[in-house]
């Protein structure tokens, strides 16, 4: 019978918290960038300008058709070289966090843009016509009328995607970056208590994500009572 020994957890909490901060940093960057770039992609995709909509469709389909781990690995291999050259940094500078953020941001934009596209399409066409009839430009109509309504309809989906994204940040382990999952793994490996640490990490992910999705459900009920 395996005997659990949780004693290595309390002492390593500060290290684990540092890992959690990295996980949250990556999540936050990817959510913000994903929503901004995703909105632009969605508008391009819905635009009647063929090259723009083709580009956006290509971008979205590409990122949705390749595994996230692979994208992350590419970025770990390519982005550091690129940034080193661009900013003239000494080779070997630790750019894993930056690469992870860029990789996640570009990847998640594809998913966000699909959510946002559906959100924009959920706003009745007549709203756009009414804006035009009042003399607004396309930009004004989008910014003042269509997007605010679209985002209000989308909030639950955007948050749900953010929760998935938070879970997916654990994939940065491929670059040995000490996010929360990576930190737990390192502690467990060091103390020979991998099982305990991974169970603990799992519990923390579960509590955070479950609490967050319960909150989203409540929000949803409040704004869209069925």
């Amino acid at each position, binding site marked *: 019978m395996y005997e659990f020994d949780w004693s290595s957890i309390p002492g390593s909490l500060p290290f684990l918290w540092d890992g959690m901060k990295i996980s949250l940093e990556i999540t936050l960057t990817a959510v913000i960038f994903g929503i901004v770039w995703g909105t632009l992609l969605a508008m391009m995709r819905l635009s009647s300008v063929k090259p723009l909509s083709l580009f956006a469709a290509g971008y979205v389909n590409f990122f949705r058709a390749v595994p996230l781990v692979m994208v992350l690995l590419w970025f770990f291999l390519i982005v550091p070289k690129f940034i080193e050259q661009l900013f003239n940094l000494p080779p070997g500078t630790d750019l894993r966090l930056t690469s992870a953020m860029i990789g996640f941001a570009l990847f998640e934009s594809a998913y966000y843009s699909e959510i946002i596209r559906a959100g924009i399409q959920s706003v009745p066409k007549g709203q756009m*016509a009414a804006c035009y*009839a*009042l*003399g607004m430009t396309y930009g004004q109509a989008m910014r*003042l009328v269509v997007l605010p309504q679209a985002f209000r309809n989308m909030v639950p989906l955007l948050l749900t995607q953010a929760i998935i994204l938070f879970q997916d940040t654990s994939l940065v382990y491929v670059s040995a970056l000490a996010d929360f999952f990576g930190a737990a793994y390192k502690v467990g490996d060091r103390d020979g208590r991998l099982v305990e640490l991974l169970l603990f990490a799992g519990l923390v992910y579960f509590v955070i994500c479950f609490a967050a999705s319960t909150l989203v459900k409540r929000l949803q009920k409040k704004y869209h009572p069925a």
Partner: protein
Amino acid sequence: MIKIENVSKNYGSFDVLKDCSTTVNKGEVVVVCGPSGSGKSTLIKCVNGLEPFQSGQIIVNGTSVGDPKTNLSKLRSHVGMVFQHFELFPHMSITENLAIAQIKVLKRSKDEAMDKGLKLLDRVGLKAHAHKFPGQLSGGQQQRVAIARALAMDPICMLFDEPTSALDPEMINEVLDVMTELAQEGMTMMCVTHEMGFAKRVAHRVIFMDHGRIVEDDSKDAFFANPRSERAQQFLAKILQH
């Protein structure tokens, strides 16, 4: 004011508008009627460029709508339009609905826009609802707000696209009353509607459309007393029965 010359429009092989020509003079009220699918809504949407058309031309107040060089936003900002489904902005209060385009398009100050909005709201009898949101108003009230929103831009003419057909019967009159008042003040109006009572009361001319063509374009009295085409006679017989 509005001059429509030989306008045609098709979706692929389907002709929506066929060689339509008519004029709306300043101060004139023209009612456009006809069976559904006859192209009347499309025609009125062509007037402010919401629908493109393939041939012919439309001149509004000296500006050609179909000309690619025309600044459509500028033209539309002084052509009021009222839609079948009101299209108020649901995330803004009534006051904001009235002020937003004045501020963003006409560059009026916030105070000026609010002032103007409230005056017009009072005019359509809804001053008490200024702080509410569109969803809290009845259909008839929303449509009156939509008319006020269009008027706030100081339009040189007004286009109405079936303004009462999405309304419950008891709300139709409150909207028609506002429109009648507007007509009596000399507003140039082009109005797609099935309300023949309204047409009889306030229209100067009636245009009857069928299958994308303007079949009749006549003074109100001539149209109702003695429609020339068989199609218009049938239409009137059906619509005037009840």
